[in-house]
């Protein structure tokens, strides 16, 4: 028995065997082998530390049985959660992230709901100690999800189409012209962890191909306008960069075309280009010359082809012959880095690092990441990551305040609100500030229009700039008008939506949709004289509603000083506001400044959620359990760095899933 236990490749196998062996000793060795086989199949590898762990079966499960299974069991599985399917510690470890949520909800007194018998303090502590004492199987950190370690695993699209931002920024970086052609493109949805970078949800339809072709013409029109006398300095520079700089004195036209096309292709394709590829592109040049057209007219055709080529419009990662996990080559890593941090293509320095084979070394990569974060192009993280993460993309289009009720909400205010969020985030990463400033900061970014809206004096002009704030209500994302608009209805605020936003967007918690409204008993008539708060409190007297609304509504009450367009107020409809909130955990607060302190106490939850989102953005897919190692590493690095955010970007860039790929044959 002991021998079997030690030889088993998994300590969970051993654990299971031992706990069973007390009840069914005759079958113990078989159990060991079965469990070992099962765990090997599930991909849970041996961890070095010894020690049996029967706590789950013997101590935790009985608690769950008493308090949880009635709603989260086989019969009823509220929130799609059936806890009875977790029979062993190995099962729990297999879905570690889910259990993190389960234990987190228990610790916050959010579960069981307050209408049900509560866990004794000792039981709560036991569950918490058990869960935090579980080893995480560190060997998983050098694995990627595949058929062997995740059953029914099907891959993700990783060699994806570029996003519209990547298209615009690439055109800008190729030509120096910031034309933003994607404004004419049909827009994309999101996938994975909620970002446009998710390869699976980036579709290419006929309209888009037509627009790519039109855009290529527009871009080349602007480039070639650079040789006209009335060209703008930017156009002149673009013509020089793309066309004339490639043509040395006395060079034959076709030779010049070869250089020009080769150079654009090399940069646009984000890799070295073989001579035959360039020669192939020149098959579009030759017939135009043959019909007697001028050099530049002929040159346009292969340049156009580069701009609609799949090598430019996709981020292809061709796979090796053999199946299995392999490391991406240096150019592919450079491409992933440039997409991640700049939403663009690699610059000259990153490309030359790749050429020299320098991107195999973690320190070089970290150095590149730090350099890239300081580059102005890192603003893309504010536009593409932060706006999507904070759910601010609908601002002004589908999230639009009622124009009669809020006539002050106009296009210039909308722009300033969006810009505040983008610049705040960009400034944070460019200066390696603490991630916690997203929750609470002493400053924000304003122009005159927005400062007037917020009631901050002394800001003049249309330029956005950093402004120190007089109090601690406004600083951080919770004080941003953009957030307040997207979490309001057109005519009024919604403490429910705001509370939900805080839980989901900042803390990564989930709030299931409400039960079918038809099944809800009316909780007494609300009257017009009641405040919004009173009506919501009445609503929460129904136990069906209370479970979630006890978590959401108090957070929203704390933000009621911000109206539906983000202006500061102390009364609503003539009645003074009550901005006090009390959470199921017993924490209470009054107003935004105190609410932020409550959130700061949950900073590791916030940090872990932030890392998950950023990793999902970088990888362009949703996360699986193998990615949890990266999350843990990054959160630890954050803690060690006093939450200065740069380490997260480094941790992701050097992580296993960022640098490796699984070739499935």
């Amino acid at each position, binding site marked *: 028995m002991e021998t079997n236990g030690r030889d088993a490749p998994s300590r969970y196998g051993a654990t299971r065997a031992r706990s069973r062996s007390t009840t069914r000793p005759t079958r113990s060795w078989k159990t060991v082998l079965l469990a070992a086989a099962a765990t090997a199949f599930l991909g849970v590898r041996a961890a070095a530390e010894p020690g049996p762990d029967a706590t789950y079966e013997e101590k935790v499960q009985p608690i769950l049985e008493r308090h949880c299974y009635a709603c989260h069991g086989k019969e009823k599985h509220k929130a799609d959660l059936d806890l009875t399917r977790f029979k062993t510690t190995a099962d729990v470890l297999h879905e570690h992230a889910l259990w993190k949520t389960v234990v987190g909800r228990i610790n916050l007194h959010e579960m069981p709901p307050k209408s049900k018998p509560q866990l004794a303090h000792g039981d709560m502590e036991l569950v918490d100690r058990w869960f935090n004492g579980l080893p995480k199987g560190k060997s998983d950190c050098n694995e990627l999800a595949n058929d062997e370690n995740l059953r029914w695993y*099907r891959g*993700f*699209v*990783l*060699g*994806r*189409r570029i996003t519209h931002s990547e298209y615009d920024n690439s055109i800008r970086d190729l030509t120096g012209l910031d034309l933003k052609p994607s404004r*004419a493109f*049909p*827009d994309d*949805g*999101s*996938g*994975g962890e*909620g970002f446009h970078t998710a*390869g*699976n*949800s980036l*579709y*290419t*339809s*006929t*309209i888009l*191909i*037509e627009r790519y*072709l039109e855009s290529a*013409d527009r871009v080349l029109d602007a480039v070639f306008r650079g040789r006209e006398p009335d060209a703008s300095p930017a156009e002149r520079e673009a013509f020089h960069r793309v066309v004339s700089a490639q043509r040395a004195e006395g060079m034959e036209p076709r030779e010049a075309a070869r250089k020009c096309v080769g150079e654009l292709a090399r940069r646009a394709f984000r890799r070295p280009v073989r001579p035959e590829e360039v020669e*192939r592109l020149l098959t*579009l040049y030759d*017939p135009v010359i043959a019909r007697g057209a001028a050099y530049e007219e002929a040159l346009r*055709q292969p340049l*156009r082809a580069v701009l609609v*080529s*799949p*090598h430019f419009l*996709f981020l*292809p*990662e*061709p796979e090796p012959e053999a199946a299995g996990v392999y490391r991406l080559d240096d150019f592919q890593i450079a491409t992933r880095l440039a997409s991640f941090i700049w939403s663009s293509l690699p610059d000259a320095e990153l490309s030359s690092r790749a050429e020299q084979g320098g991107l195999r070394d973690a320190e070089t990569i970290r150095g590149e990441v730090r350099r890239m974060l300081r580059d102005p192009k890192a603003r893309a993280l504010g536009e593409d990551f932060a706006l*999507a993460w904070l*759910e601010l993309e*609908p601002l002004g*289009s*589908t*999230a*639009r305040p*009622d*124009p*009669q*009720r809020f006539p002050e909400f106009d296009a210039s205010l909308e722009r300033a609100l969006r810009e505040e969020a983008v610049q705040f985030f960009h400034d944070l990463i460019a200066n390696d500030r603490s991630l916690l400033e997203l929750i609470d900061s002493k400053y924000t970014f304003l122009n005159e229009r927005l400062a007037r809206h917020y009631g901050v004096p002394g800001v003049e002009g249309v330029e956005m700039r950093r402004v120190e704030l007089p109090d601690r209500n406004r600083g951080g994302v919770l004080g941003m008008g953009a957030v307040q608009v997207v979490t309001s*209805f*057109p*005519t009024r605020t919604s403490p429910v939506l705001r509370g939900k936003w805080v839980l*989901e967007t900042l803390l990564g918690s989930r709030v*299931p*949709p409400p039960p*079918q*409204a*038809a099944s809800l008993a009316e909780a007494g008539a609300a009257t017009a004289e009641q405040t919004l708060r009173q009506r919501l409190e009445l609503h929460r007297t129904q136990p069906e509603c209370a479970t979630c609304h006890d978590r959401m509504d108090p957070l929203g009450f704390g933000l009621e000083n911000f109206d539906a367009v983000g202006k500061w107020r102390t009364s609503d409809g003539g009645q003074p506001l009550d901005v006090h909130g009390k959470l199921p955990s017993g924490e209470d607060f009054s107003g935004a400044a105190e609410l932020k302190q409550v959130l700061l106490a949950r900073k590791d939850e916030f940090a872990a959620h932030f890392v998950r989102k950023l990793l999902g953005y970088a990888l362009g897919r*949703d996360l699986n359990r193998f990615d949890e190692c990266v999350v843990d590493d990054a959160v630890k690095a954050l803690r060690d760095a006093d939450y200065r955010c740069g380490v997260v970007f480094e941790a992701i860039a050097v992580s296993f899933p960022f640098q490796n790929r699984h070739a499935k044959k």
Partner: protein
Amino acid sequence: MPARSSRIDSVSSRPISRRTFLRGTGVALGLPILEAMGPILGRPHALAAAPSTPGAPIRPPVRMACLYFPNGVWQPSWIPKQAGFGYDVPPSLEPLGALRDEVTVLSGLDKANSRQGDGHYAKTANFLTGLPVRKTTGKEVDVGGISIDQLCAARIGGLTPLPSLELAVDPVITGIDSNVGYTRLYGSYISWRTPTTPLAREIHPRRAYERLFGVRGAGAGDPRSAIAAQRSDDDRRLLDLVLEDAQHLRDRLGRDDRQKLDEYMDSVRAVEQRIEFYARPDPREWKPAAGEPTADVAPPAGAPGDHCEHVRLMLDLIVLAFQTDSTRVATFMFANDVSGKNFGALIPGVSGSHHEFSHHEGKAEKYEPYAKINRWHVAQLAYMLERMRAIREGDGSLLDHSMVLFGSSFSDGNRHDPNNLPILLAGRGGGDIAAGQHIASPPNTPLCNLYVSMVERMGTPVERFGDSTEALDLRSRGPRRARV
């Protein structure tokens, strides 16, 4: 407001805005084609008159538009109390007015495959497929089957310059709904070229117009010129080259990445086909009375600020596309699902979020505005139908030769109920639809039965579609009232 019926050929010295042109029959009768053809949408041949077929007159083709509105309906104001002809018009359908004889009201139709899943996404994405929507935040998006419009486009789309037209008003909803486990993009697409590939929708009226009619700014010259022919040659060579590149690249990619390159290749081929369309003899036998629109009927550039204006411009474009036989299949989304659009500026006393009103909780303060919003959408349908009825074609009107499906993906918004869906079908589908009645189907009749009947009238019948059990009978059922 200028008269909507003003015709281009009756233009007097009164200044007429572009909007009026588009709102009129919108077509320059017999005028030469003036638009400059862009290099890609360029047409070596304009819509030259094809040799006329001797003998019997050729019937106008049947066209199909599917219009979706979000968030369901307040049923007491929607479903007529009696079946058959001569029903009492419920308040939400009143804007149809005299058009009620052109419209079939359908009740009792269900989308059984939406009884599972979340409240919205699992119901809207399959509005036109009728099959289950896969729960996913983005990986392996799947709506079970091709949508009914795309089935028709795949079969008859080659007969027109554009196989189909997909229009909407709002940008695609971004993000995922991690609580229900669906990507929100499901709420923004009803047209699916394959079960896994939604079709991009155009939301800018001007761009949609230019895509249809190729008006791309002056200076490109005569489309029949040698220069235009050279352009088409250049385009063809270029598209062939990138297509070949894509094929080579595809061979070196992993399985999942290949699917995405397939989408690229399919779309490049579709662009090629569009260029080829004009290089071949025109396959269309029937010739619309109207020629191509002139450049000055184009809608204004930029996004219309006003929602009503935006919706009507999009509906105008569908009418214009049908009238000129530029396509025979179109879809339109008044808004994405879960839309919180505020109708305060359009309907007096209805300030607030559409989605919020749809969760009416049985309270009059919510269902009254909700019903008014439903009614507003019906009014926009009436606007479109009015225009279609005014366009004469052969022995009838454009509306007689069309089917305009108008509906939502669940019935009661409070319960997200996918049964007894609110569905209207306008037009006579070429002749035999007995419009003007309320067809109350027995409970659990699949919505897809209606789709089978529609596809049949598009001249390309199917035995089954989605979860259909049989074709829905759209012909006469009760005593026919005299038409007004």
